[in-house]
């Protein structure tokens, strides 16, 4: 069920240049059903900024009723969010959308998780859940440069982790595809989240493979009512437009026209 929860900040820290990790607690955590779901965050009580910000759930801990979000403080809203301190309240709507299907990879199989920049966070919870059920996860994470890279260690603890940076300051120089080209691992599925050009490259590289991609779109309501966040399907019929917020954000590869 979707809740509007006044969650409490348990901790907030900067984990890379302009990248923040915020731990939140509240009953909303108990409603999360799959990795890759997101929350819609109101950053202030004010009417400016007005709209909520969609942020992926990066990890959850049901025992402590906590979840983590990781975000880049860039625009007006996220910059304000970055100023929250321990004990502050945050108005969070969620969980929203349909996440990555963990069931699509069987125990013993291998999954490749490809994340780009601020698309990396939801893959962390995904990897935790896949690994827990016995899937072997290989992580390919792309960043602009070393100073904005994060969670390398966390992912390494779950499985092989390859980093690509555009400027070559960490790992392989170039895009995630540079890593993918040299990866001769057999895999059953791939999961990806990141900017549109990256999703496109990944989908093209893995044509014919079973994959799941998580999309971004500017949102109004976040729950499927306003038709703001649509994306076009490859199937140009009745369902020519589907909604990222409530039909997605994760879709099987090939469904969305990119």
């Amino acid at each position, binding site marked *: *069920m*979707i809740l*509007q929860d006044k969650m409490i900040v348990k901790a907030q820290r900067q984990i890379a240049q302009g990248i923040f990790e915020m731990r939140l607690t509240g009953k909303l955590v108990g409603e999360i059903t799959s990795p890759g779901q997101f929350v819609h965050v*109101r950053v202030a009580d004010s*009417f*400016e*900024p*007005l*709209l*909520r910000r969609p942020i992926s759930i990066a990890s959850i801990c049901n025992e402590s009723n906590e979840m983590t979000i990781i975000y880049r403080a860039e625009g007006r*809203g996220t910059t304000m969010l970055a100023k929250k301190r321990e004990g502050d309240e945050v108005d969070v*709507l969620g969980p929203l959308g349909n996440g990555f299907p963990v069931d699509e990879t069987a125990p013993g199989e291998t999954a490749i998780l490809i994340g780009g920049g601020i698309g990396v966070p939801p893959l962390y919870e995904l990897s935790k859940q896949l690994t827990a059920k016995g899937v072997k996860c290989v992580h390919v994470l792309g960043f602009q440069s070393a100073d904005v890279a994060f969670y390398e260690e966390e992912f390494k603890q779950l499985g092989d982790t390859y980093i690509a940076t555009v400027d070559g300051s960490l790992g392989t120089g170039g895009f995630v595809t540079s890593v993918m080209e040299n990866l001769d691992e057999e895999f059953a599925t791939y999961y990806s989240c990141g900017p549109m050009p990256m999703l496109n490259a990944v989908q093209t590289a893995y044509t014919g493979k079973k994959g799941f991609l998580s999309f971004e*779109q*500017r*949102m*109004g*309501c*976040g*729950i*499927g*009512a*306003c*038709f*703001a*966040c*649509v*994306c076009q399907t490859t199937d140009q019929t*009745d369902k*020519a*437009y589907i909604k990222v917020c*409530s039909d997605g954000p994760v879709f099987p590869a090939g469904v969305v026209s990119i």
Partner: protein
Amino acid sequence: MNRLSIELPGLQLKNPIMPASGCFGFGKEYGNLYDLSQLGAIMIKATTLETRFGNPTPRVAETAAGMLNAIGLQNPGLQGVMEAELPWLEQFDVPIIANVAGTETADYVEVAKTISTAPNVKALELNISCPNVKCGGITFGTDPQQAHDLTAAVKAVSEVPVYVKLSPNVTDIKAIAKAVEEGGADGITMINTLVGMRLDQKTGRPIIANVTGGLSGPAVKPVAIRMVYEVSQVVNIPIIGMGGVSNAEDVIDFLSVGASAVAVGTANFVDPFVCPTIIEELPAKMDALGIEHITDLIGRSHRL
């Protein structure tokens, strides 16, 4: 006695609060969050004759205390709405106001004729003010004669009372209001969005794919309040006011300047429970003002 009840042409409202068209889809999503029977009414998303996919994305952009949208009237078309959306809404004890849009008079007439026969559609809202479609829409809303004629044509076929939704993007909104009243409108809803634009700072290009979008939210409330104040003094038909309503105080403001009921748009995105919350808070606010019945608020700015 229900202190919040209001009777308007075609509408027995439990309370004066209803979600605004386009901000509530056809109710399903918010219906998952709370019981829609609490609402005074529901203004559903614009219905056109044919299925529309709307504009390319991005379709929304945030502005200071407001937002721009250019959804472009995406909707499943008249048949889809009649067969799937309206029947689903019948489970709730809530009157539906069907927002009718089109490109030319004939479209409007055809949609109005059919949709007004749905059992739960108690009134139509004639959308002559959508700024986000190339033809039709706002062009009917900026010229008094065209607004008059379209109203009359729809009125002639509708089985239920017709409310006309006015555009704020005009020099003299009173003239348009009087024209639609003369055309036979049973009521007015106002305001639709103000045409606005926002750029991407880096590229200098408009964020909204459609270039311009409709401005809504708290930012426009002063303009909406002023226009309702003006129009309510020159027409004798009721007004459903909207534009930036976010809380019970805003509702009281709209009623004070002469609206008989109030629609809530953008605020649903900020707080999905805003409509039931307002309904719950109204009685206490009325007590504080010494107001017995909600209708006592209507037009108090004029009486003072």
